[in-house]
């Protein structure tokens, strides 16, 4: 009986001992928040690496989690527009609404690429603020880490030195790792690739790889047979070294094109949890580079 009471009391003492309850929209920001928050933060990640970040549903469990969050950490740039506004308004939690201190967008600290000059839905699923898959540029991770640690410190001033200390430690390890990855990835420079969707643009730009085609005819439009046939033809003039897709994407188009063009088909983890080795942000980058290097051999 006593143990039951203890259990009930323990269950009732939410949000636990952690000072900051963090709701992360995507695994990369969940991983970063955990790096910075250590045991002072309890992080809930709303999505997995196997889920298309453009098409998430405002599930009841997400609304329940947002209700108790002190800080929502999302990408912004309209990536979560299909579900997050609903989760926020239904959460009944005033601290995490747009514009409040408990709402953090990575895009506000990052440098964006592929910002369209004009937007029209005829161009497919374009994002007016630029390409939102910004976490595959290590400099962006560093920028976001800085802003996020500052935000966590503002919300939980008591533990500010803890967060900043962890952030400095993370930055040090991250800069070292970035320098190492840049050395290792030298052979990738100029590597021509066919990608599924423009979700790898930051990675390509950072390591100097070239995109010679996308499996999607337009952003967000699923690959069609006609477009794939056309792409196959264009590879005669501008050959690629590999077909690359992210773990959450439909394998069929990439595998078909790779088979027809006799190219390796590479699956990148895309975000934390997308492969066995991508257990954290470091693992994500290491595994992505290792898989791409496989194509150059």
């Amino acid at each position, binding site marked *: 009986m006593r143990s039951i009471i203890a259990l009930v009391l323990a269950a009732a003492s939410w949000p636990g001992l952690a000072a900051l309850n963090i709701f992360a929209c995507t695994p990369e920001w969940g991983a970063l928040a955990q790096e910075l928050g250590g045991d002072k933060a309890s992080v809930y990640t709303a999505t997995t690496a196997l889920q298309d970040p453009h098409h998430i549903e405002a599930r009841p469990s997400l609304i329940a989690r947002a209700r108790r969050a002190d800080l929502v950490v999302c990408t912004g740039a309209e990536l979560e527009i299909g579900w997050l506004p609903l989760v926020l308004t239904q959460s009944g939690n005033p601290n995490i609404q747009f514009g409040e201190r408990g709402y953090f967008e990575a895009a506000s600290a990052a440098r964006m690429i592929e910002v369209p000059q004009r937007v029209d*839905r005829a161009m497919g699923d374009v994002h007016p603020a630029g390409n939102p898959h910004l976490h595959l540029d290590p400099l962006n991770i560093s920028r976001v880490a*800085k802003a996020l640690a500052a935000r966590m410190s503002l919300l939980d001033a008591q533990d500010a030195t803890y967060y900043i200390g962890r952030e400095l430690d993370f930055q040090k390890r991250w800069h070292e790792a970035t320098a190492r990855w840049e050395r290792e990835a030298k052979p990738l420079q100029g590597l021509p690739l066919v990608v599924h969707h423009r979700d790898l643009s930051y990675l390509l730009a950072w390591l100097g790889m070239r995109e010679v085609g996308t499996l999607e005819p337009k952003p967000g439009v699923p690959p069609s047979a006609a477009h794939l046939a056309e792409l196959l033809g264009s590879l005669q003039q501008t050959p690629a070294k590999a077909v690359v897709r992210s773990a959450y994407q439909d394998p069929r188009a990439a595998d078909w094109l790779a088979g027809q063009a006799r190219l390796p088909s590479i699956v990148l983890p895309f975000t934390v949890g997308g492969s066995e080795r991508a257990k954290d942000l470091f693992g994500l980058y290491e595994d992505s580079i290792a898989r791409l290097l496989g194509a150059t051999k």
Partner: protein
Amino acid sequence: MVRKWICVTALAVAVPQAHAQDAEAQKLREELRQMQQRVDALEQRPRQTGENAFNPSISLILQGTAARSSQDPAAYRIDGFAPSGGEVAPAPRSFSLGESELIISANIDPYFRGQLTAALTPENEVEVEEAFFQTLGLGKGFTLKGGRFLSGIGYQNEIHQHAWDFQDAPLPYKAFLGGRLNDDGVQLRWLAPTDLFLEFGAELGRGRAFPSADSSRNGAGAWSLFAHAGGDLGVSTAWRTGLSYLQVKPEDRAFEDSDSLGNPVSQSFSGTSKLWIADFVLKWAPNGNATITNFKLQGEYFRRDESGSLTYDDGTALNGAYASRQSGWYLQGVYQFMPRWRAGLRYDRLDHGTVDNAIVTGGLGPSAADFGPLMTAYNPSRSTVMLDWSPSEFSRLRLQLASDKSRADVTDNQVLLQYIFSLGAHGAHTF
């Protein structure tokens, strides 16, 4: 601003004073100060300038159908049930424009959000489907809504028509709510602070439409309570279930009919109408990734108890006690078998139940045959299949076939093609 200074002061104090590594602490403090400035600068950076920077988000839904049916939709009725007066008939024959919906929404200030959903009907009228404010900053999980809004009872009631998986509403919605409930009133919701989604809500309304009848009394003509629970079963499945109760006190809820000889009669009900709804929805997708394949199963059960008095007027008005207990349910499944393509199956059924009409049983004159809709002991049912293709998330084309037995002794076979296009701001869809 004051809060900001308190934060900064707190940060400064939080740094351990008498620490061996004083230089390190100093460095941290400086770093923190710079970050503070950085965050402030980012927050203050204007994103957009000009007069339209604060324009609300606008989206527009265009819909239309081309339909064939073996029975005339204009003469549609649901036998065995009091007519709801709502727009419940199947799509008109031939080409027909559906309701074009204009949705305008924005945060009003840090405390409120506002939304208008106007339906431009094919009859060239404008209908206000929703026009409400909603609080943002009440806190503790509370949200207050006021104005005209889709009621939180049941599951499908709160979903906009363009997001339905079939072109029309399930039979229980047609028979018990006139298609849907969107009363004028207030709604208070509370979300429990638990990992399991637990939500409770209460509504007070005017009772401006079926199952109520608009009256000019002071106070609320309708009230309802609902509770929803939901969560995940592993990473692939999400569910939500709910129980709702709606009570109204209609006065002179009338409809025109004809007696067994074809003479016009007016019937009206006054009394209490209580409606219970139990609902569930289950969504499955491999690894929770709905883009390639996914499955959705949804069902609701309705039960209505009405008691009061009935007036039967064929020139001379008769009055007698009236009580009924009726029910209905539907179950539907929609499967996306490949990207862009979905197929769905729905079965709905109404149970006439028991109706106690003292005008008939007391032998006041009219027989059961004179009360067409109320006394026909008939259980309507319908089977529907649909196939839809969505080139993008902003467009959808649908083929729907139905075998509708809403009318006793006749089967209405319906075929329709429907388009749904959404323009403008990307609206978020409810679960």
